[in-house]
């Protein structure tokens, strides 16, 4: 399926999605509460069959949080960058996708650890890289650690 087809597939299901043709991938931004049904369908539908989640990450924007899913279909060889906008920066929450793509389990734990995004229904949401008693979420832009951080 080409980018136009994927765009139509998503717009049929999530009409408020914003699509941008990036330099490599089609970039689609959807509201965070739409992720779980859409992700399930993107994987299970035979025309899209996005079965390979090769990158999951979070971005801290000034007014919102974003989770970015980079997807690939091993059968059709097409790719997609799916972005979820989480309105609340203070208490970001989003549904987990680790029951759809198993690799998400560790990636989501990392995003929780570094950005403080709560993945609802995640089987084991704990800190991954930092110690359990760490305070704050270091990858956030407003994180401040006067001892360890170097000012430029």
């Amino acid at each position, binding site marked *: 399926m080409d980018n136009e087809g994927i765009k139509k597939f998503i717009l049929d299901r999530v009409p408020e999605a914003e699509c941008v043709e*990036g*330099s*490599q*991938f089609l*970039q689609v931004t959807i509201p965070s509460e739409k992720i779980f049904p859409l992700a399930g369908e993107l994987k299970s539908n035979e025309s899209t069959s996005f*079965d*390979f*989640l*090769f*990158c999951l*990450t979070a*971005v*801290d924007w000034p007014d919102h949080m974003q989770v*970015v899913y*980079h997807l690939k279909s*091993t059968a059709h*060889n097409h790719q997609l*960058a799916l972005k979820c906008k989480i309105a609340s920066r203070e208490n970001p929450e989003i549904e987990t996708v680790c029951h759809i*793509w*198993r*690799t998400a*389990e*560790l*990636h989501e734990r*990392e995003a929780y650890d*570094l950005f403080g995004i709560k993945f609802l229904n995640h089987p084991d949401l704990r800190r*991954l*890289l*930092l*110690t359990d008693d760490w305070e704050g979420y*270091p*990858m956030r832009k407003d994180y401040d650690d006067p001892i360890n951080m*170097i000012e*430029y």
Partner: protein
Amino acid sequence: MEEVIQDKDLESKEYFINMGPQHPSTHGVLRLVLSLDGEIIRKVEPHLGFIHRSIEKMCEHDVYNQIVHLTDRMDYLSCHINNEAVCLCVEQALQLEIPDRIKVIRTIIGELTRLSSHQLWWGVMGMDLGAITSFLYGFRDREMITDIFEETCGARLTMNYNLPGGLMFDIHPNFQKRTKDFIAHFKKKLPEYDTLLSNNVIFRQRTKGIGYLSKEDAISYGVTGPTARASGFSCDVRKHHPYSGYDKVQFKEILDTEGDCYARYKCRIAEMWESMSIIEQLIDNIPEGPHKVPTKAVIKLPKGEWYQKVETARGEFGVYIISEGQKSPYRLKFRSPGFSNLSALDHMARGCKIADLVAIMSTLDLVIPDIDR
């Protein structure tokens, strides 16, 4: 009077032991908490972060030329390929046209890096399973490659040979001769590897049928590299999304369907032959030209985002740059192959013995700084 042993006294209980962080077969500081029933593994839970340096956060304050150097410190056995990923991503954002000479040299050194990484893996894997000789064999041959690197760029391990826009230096006049000497030498030595380990009865029994990973699970867990290709998942970035000089050379993507430790072992051995064939095709055909395209001293990328994936010795390495038009990225994410490969460890090790876990970890070829970043 003897007491009658009741059935309830013989009930076994699940218990936990720590493997690592100071365990030789974890190849670094990785702590695994094993949940055991007798000697059978019920669950493996990795605890990470012993060498977490938050490289991604550091990158948000660094200029792009500095970021290249940090990537050496992740997967240090594929350092050149990691450097290349960042350089390709920056070049793609700047829409720089890279001369063929640079592409070809990058490809040759990338394949030498892959060979040296696989040689080290082979030696260490033998040692994990109790064969010390293989460690010495692996390092003997790897030494020739690190010598070539040293002559080319002054460093043996963390090479920093790439720059956005080209290479630090041109190749050394001896480079082609020494590389050809090495290929001739290693072609004779690689069959020895088969004699020593591949056809060894004990080695085969320790690896055949152990740690099975199906193709569907490999895709779902995001496993890439030789580990996934041994399960039949065609994921070679060099084939699917060719970069540098890979569209000009002929090579096979090594695939297997067995999905056990022995299949992963065979895949890596076969990849060494393919790497040598790629180098042979290119080494006499390095085009003339500059080794560097001039760029600004401080590179500023336009507003936007770019993703670049490359094939390291462990699998798919991705660099995701989001730029706001500044000299540093707004956000930079490294998708490291080891991190995703590790997530499948629990699935593969369930039901195996503790000794099998060592074999499984060896064939995953984990490099811990790559996982912790």
